[in-house]
């Protein structure tokens, strides 16, 4: 996706002056964010930069102190979380939250059954194939490895065919092989036209996957650019090394 593409197409997601204050603490500060349909964006920044809070506001878990969120042309700033999901957003938060006592298949059933009584076998199978868990379809989710649980959760998130997928540190705790698999998975999703925002710390992951990066710091958008630009940016390196 070129810069021109990004700027001319109607954004699928747009935030305008998005701010979140917790008492005296400003977690997210006047963030203007634009995402084009089918775009892959990496959101990075040191700890406490406001990435998770930003995500939670997109999801509807936190309500913004100021600012608006527009999704597919509609203002969703006050929309309830489940309403946003129904409009075509899907989220995987940082902490793994599959249903630990249910099997892999049952886990997939939950989102798939939202709009119909029974999830089609085919669809379940297709999703299982994507995350290479076909042989583990009857395994209790708790017994999967951490990386497999992450994949299961991603599969659950994409089972709803979202137009926008938000992933908060999807490769946290994964092995190098698992991280590579995740890169492939996400790239296949964007190839299908899904817009994806990934929050990540793992720089090698970001390098493999990123087209355009947004850097947050102290709740603000610090800078944006391609992987090369960001890696070369001394200011970015400094904020990571800490201004404490």
């Amino acid at each position, binding site marked *: 996706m070129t810069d021109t593409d990004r700027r001319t197409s109607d954004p699928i997601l747009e935030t305008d002056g998005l701010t979140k204050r917790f008492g005296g603490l400003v977690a997210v500060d006047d963030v203007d964010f634009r995402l084009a349909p089918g775009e892959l964006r990496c959101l990075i920044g040191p700890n406490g930069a406001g990435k998770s809070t930003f995500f939670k506001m997109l999801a509807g878990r936190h309500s913004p102190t100021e600012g608006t969120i527009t999704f597919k042309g509609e203002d969703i700033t006050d929309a309830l*979380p489940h309403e946003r*999901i129904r409009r075509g957003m899907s989220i995987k938060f940082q902490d793994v939250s599959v*249903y630990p006592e*249910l099997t892999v298949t049952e886990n997939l059933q939950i989102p798939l059954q939202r709009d119909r009584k029974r999830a089609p076998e085919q669809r379940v199978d297709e999703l299982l194939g994507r995350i290479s868990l076909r042989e583990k379809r009857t395994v209790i989710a708790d017994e999967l490895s951490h990386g497999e649980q992450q994949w299961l959760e991603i599969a659950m998130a994409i089972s709803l065919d979202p137009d926008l997928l938000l992933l908060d540190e999807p490769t946290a705790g994964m092995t190098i092989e698992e991280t590579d698999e995740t890169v492939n998975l996400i790239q296949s999703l964007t190839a299908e036209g899904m817009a994806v925002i990934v929050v990540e710390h793992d720089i090698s992951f970001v390098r493999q996957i990123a087209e355009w990066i947004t850097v947050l710091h102290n709740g603000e958008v610090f800078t944006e650019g391609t992987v090369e630009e960001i890696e070369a940016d001394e200011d970015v390196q400094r904020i990571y090394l800490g201004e404490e």
Partner: protein
Amino acid sequence: MSRLSNSLRAFEGQHTIGNSRRFWIGFCLAVLLVLLFPFVAGVFSVIQMTVFLIWIFVALSLTLVWGYTGIFSFGQNAFFGVGGYLFAIVGGNLIEVTGATNVALLAAILAPALFAALLGYFMFYGRVSGVYVAIITLSVTLILELITSSTTGVTLGRVDLGGYNGINTVPNLTLGYGETAFSFGPVPMYYLVVVLLVALYLGLRYVLNGHTGYVLIAIREDEARTEMFGYDIRWLKLQAFTASAAIAGLGGALYTAWGNFISPPVMGILVAALPLIWVTVGGRQTLLGAILGAFVLQYLDTTLASSLNSDYAVIVLGIIFVVSILVLPNGVIPQIMTYLNDRATDDEHDEQNAQEAGSPTAIGGDEN
């Protein structure tokens, strides 16, 4: 026969216990025994049995709302009481007019449901959850006890609410119309309760093993996550809560019709604990656990009460309860099922081993 097993499949699933022919045969036998009971037992025993079965309605309502949906509603007795009082008030007033209690029965189911809908809306749409739901529902139950206790001298139509002594002029359950209305005496009441209970059990099995079951369990396991799949959990919890109230209300109506009596203590702190005790000991995440827990513990209570002393009986029950929470948090029935399943798997393995050992071609392959 296979048509039958196909239709039975709708009642089977991972969310309830018993998914084999053996189970259904056992189930039918049990129901048969229950149906034959009045032929071998005296009227007093039948009356006693009936009330045990009636309280199972409350146990099942608690299992639905707590065991399956994860809502800590400690106020099922409130709905039971509302159902009972409504049956008494409406029935007492209309029996002279219509000669039946049809409307009373309907009112006894709808009023608790409406009440639950309002309370549920207040709580779930206000994002009240977890232990606060427990506190609010328990408080509501006790508030109702306080209110009904203070109705000495208050009369609604023909019915004197009786304050702490309650209403003891409740008519029998009478269904039909005018001259042909049928008044349920002890034995017919027993059979009606059995039929309703079996219907409720099968109905819950059907619902819980299907789509609804998945959704409720998802809410129980991780409400926030389920919301993030686009489920409106407030609305879904409200539905489960209301349905459970209707079930408890039905129990209340049956109870009041059974004893021709309803009084405030059913909504007091001691009696409100009982359904909790039964389903916790029996196994709150299964219907069978709730049913057996409620039945066995009531039976135990009555037996101990007559042989020891009703207070000692309660102490024993209380101890069983506390021990059960510590040692078997999932309840007795699931523990038994796990044991039986393990033994069954062992038997299967033994069979497999025996087959492999005994069959020559299995080892040597094609000996041609």
